């Protein structure tokens, strides 16, 4: 917990909590400030100036009364462009009422990168090609288009790399991404890749990011499992139901049908959702099979209904 420079802590005054207390260099970050103790009681309901070391007002902080006599508010601060420590002072405008200011001290650090891998199939036949998507985000939301990502097979072999695309993924603010094609090994079992994005070459200092992904390499599916999913009460087909015999999975189509192509062997089949209680059956797959899964509805009841 940062204390004012050069002053002994005054317990009655209380504490200043900053969330977060670490800022990315050069980034604009919304910071939540929580005060406790006597200071909180004096300042709740007031608006403070947040002043940098040059005396410039960087932001304003309106403090609201909180639980247990605390006061809290948020303000947006832009971090300096060098790592280290940065300190602002929060004070009433014009230092009115003789109320002393207090410090907001942050650690300023390089940006960090974060990797996300999705659309990775859980099962791929031996030697088959498949695609996955890899996204990269800077903790400061930097534009990462054109940066490269590398996937290295854990079992050895040539790495694959790809260039990040120009626009963030739909629904995200700054997750830049690309699609990468891979080839499954010829051996059954789990195959893994290490994914790496290096911070070198980006405009601001970034730390590296690493992730690990796995796929189940399986023999060719010899048998077709055809599943029809219906509601127990109405017998109406259920579209969008999950049909899962790990690691194989599919969703039912609009007529409530799904097919899995399975190698021989013992399987547990789950059929579930949406809004239905999971159905499960276990058995040996030795031939083409057809199953009708009758699902009981799990109606999203109100609490009043549940208890009445």
């Amino acid at each position, binding site marked *: 917990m940062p204390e004012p420079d050069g002053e002994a802590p005054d317990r009655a005054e209380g504490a200043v909590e900053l969330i977060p207390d670490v800022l990315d260099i050069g980034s604009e970050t919304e910071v939540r400030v929580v005060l406790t103790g006597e200071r909180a009681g004096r300042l709740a309901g007031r608006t403070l100036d947040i002043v940098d070391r040059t005396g410039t007002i960087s932001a304003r902080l309106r403090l609201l009364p909180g639980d247990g006599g605390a006061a809290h508010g948020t303000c947006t601060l832009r971090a300096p462009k060098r790592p280290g420590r940065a300190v602002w002072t929060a004070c009433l405008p014009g230092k009115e009422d003789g109320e002393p200011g207090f410090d907001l001290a942050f650690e300023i650090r390089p940006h960090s990168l*974060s990797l996300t891998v*999705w659309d990775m199939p859980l099962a791929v036949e031996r030697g088959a090609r498949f695609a996955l998507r890899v996204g990269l985000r800077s903790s400061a939301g930097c534009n990462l288009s054109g940066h490269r990502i590398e996937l290295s097979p854990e079992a050895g072999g040539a790495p694959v790399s790809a260039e990040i695309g120009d626009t963030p993924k739909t629904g995200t603010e700054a997750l830049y991404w690309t699609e990468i094609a891979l080839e499954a090994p010829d051996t059954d079992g*789990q195959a893994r890749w290490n994914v790496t994005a290096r911070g070198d070459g980006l405009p601001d200092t970034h730390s590296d990011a690493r992730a690990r992904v796995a796929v189940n390499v399986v023999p060719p599916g010899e048998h077709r499992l055809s599943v029809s999913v219906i509601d127990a009460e109405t017998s109406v087909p259920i579209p969008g139901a999950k049909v899962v015999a790990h690691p194989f999975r599919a969703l039912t189509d609009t007529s409530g049908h799904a097919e899995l192509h399975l190698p021989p062997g013992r399987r547990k089949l789950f059929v579930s959702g949406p809004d239905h209680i999971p159905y499960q059956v276990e058995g040996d797959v030795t031939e083409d099979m057809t199953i009708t899964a009758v699902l009981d509805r799990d109606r999203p009841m109100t609490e*009043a209904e549940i208890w009445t």
Partner: protein
Amino acid sequence: MGRKADPHAKNTTVETEPAEPASGISRRGFVAAGAAAGVGAAVAGAPQPTAAAEGEDWDYEVDVVVAGGGCAGLTAAIRAHDLGASVLVVDQNYDLGGRMLHSGSFLSLGGGDPVQMRDMAGEADPDGYITVPPVEDPAEVDDNVELLFTDVTDWSIVDTKAQSPYRYNERDMMRSWAENCPATRQFLMDNYVRFTRVNGTHGGGGVSRARAPYCFLMLGDVTDMRAGTITAEDAGVAHPERTSALAPVQMQDASSFVAPGAVRNGVALARPLEFSAREKGVKFMLHRHFDELVREEPFAGRVLGVTASYSPRHDPKTGELLHSYWQRGNVDERRERVRIRARKGVIVASGGHAGNPEFRGMFYPALREPAFPTSGYALQGPHGQDASGIIAGMKVGANLSGMQQNLSYPTTFHISTRLGTRDAYTTMMPGHPTFNFRGSAGINVGNAGFEEFIAVNQVGRRFFNEVRLPLRPSINRYPGGEAAGLPNAELDHVPNDWRNCRHEWIRQMYDYDHGLDAALAMNEGSEPPNYYSGPIWAIFDQDAVERTGWEMRFPYVNEDNGYYFRADTIEELANKIRAGHPFQRVPLVHLPETVATWNGYVADGADPDFEREADAPMNPVSTPPFHALSIMVIWHDSYGGLRVNGRCQVVDLHGQVIAGLYAGGEAVGGFNKHGLGKGHVHGYIAGTHIAEEMS
């Protein structure tokens, strides 16, 4: 009437006629005194100031003070007023009804009550609204007081959590309760409450007969409590995402229990009762928290009155003082503290302790965690169910009862399937003045929805098999059978039979998952002295949103109220939760590792930590953006409280009645009955007997 116009609602509500009360009560019966006289006298129907009584510095004087305007309080107030007493109800909220208003209105009484008799005869209601035949066979509603009393004191019944809900009930109180059920049903019907067909029985209301109808109103062109009609706008059924100032919870279809066009829930119970009380001349002091009882001596003598403090509720956005839906009978008193003399006595009907973390911590220390509220906290405000009545009683020497019974009913604390709102019990939508206190309606994912995410604690670790988190033990009630923990169903049930609890049977029917307890467990983020477990979170990805169709938008979720977060990466999601949730005291440091581990388990098809693969398919959390919805542990209702006798008089630690002090509803312990039936009958009994007290 001082109520702000709702631009979405037609102005078709029929208000109370401004006529003199019909009870014949004199204005001297309700007296404002002292410095606040000007305020009190400004209220229509309020009397003039008078001198302080009996040397005490009273601000108001009345025959009966009722603390709390919920199911017990409103019933008691009307009953006492009907019998000639002047009555003042003080309530901490801005409006009346308490939790009755957001209830399901399933009102289990019995003992051969008039609705059971009506259905047994196959008759319709007096208005002729009911056109559907009885739901239950005549034999299933053929009830009597002896059978009801036997049921609610049955020693032999054990629930699927291996708790016993009936054997510990206070016998004197239960006898009186059973005897007064038929009269209370008639009393409610005489005060504009309309009941559907009987359909089963509420938990705690016995297992031998069907005893519970819902309350209903008919959709119509006007909202008229006398006629039993309500507009679609007022009922909250005109728009799927909007309710009204009259109905905090949108009303539900009741056509299968009444006729096409019938709607039901607590609105059809609370509002008619409130209307009747106001019409008859009961007075109300709202925004007024009942604090203390005034007794002649600290632990001796009569209870003389109460002290109550100003507890205004303001709109969190506009800062405006909230106003009750109806105004007639309101006493606009805004002094910080007032003393109110009760010449005949005080009825404590201010609710239980479910909203008081310190109090409920007596029963389960983990639930001192303030992140987890009681149900309907937005409607009731910060003082709802705060144990004030029980604490006030304890301060004047009252005994307690049923303190272990919180553990015997599965609503007491449970995990809600409604995610993304702190107020996770109710379905309140925008349109009610207190919606802004919750900020989001939440998303009810049902039990099935729990397979779509991983659930993590305050440091970002999983703690239980997610799909078993919301499962709850069943309740012993009619029609019985194995699902209700009983070896026999319907009319084959045998009360007080040892076979109901033979250990072979208990082993067979025991059905309780302890996910709730894992959710409340200490973790590495828990710190002394309270070791709060912290909030819990559902973490899922965009694929889950697309699979399920969950609507991640207002009014279901709100990215600004601290109960829903969305982010590009798991790391960013953890940071947002830490910064934006009011009870997130520590960072979710383990969340990235937890998600990576989970995705590995999904690839493996096995969850060695919690064996999820045994119950449901496992889904990766990998497709951005990522989402977090709060999961709420809710303490709904409470069962330990003041000990009362058969007249609902509070009894002290020496077994002696505290003169002038009555109690009812959740403020009372020793009656392990869920819901409204307890409170209404208590109110009826207390209102009857307090009116007989000498002034």
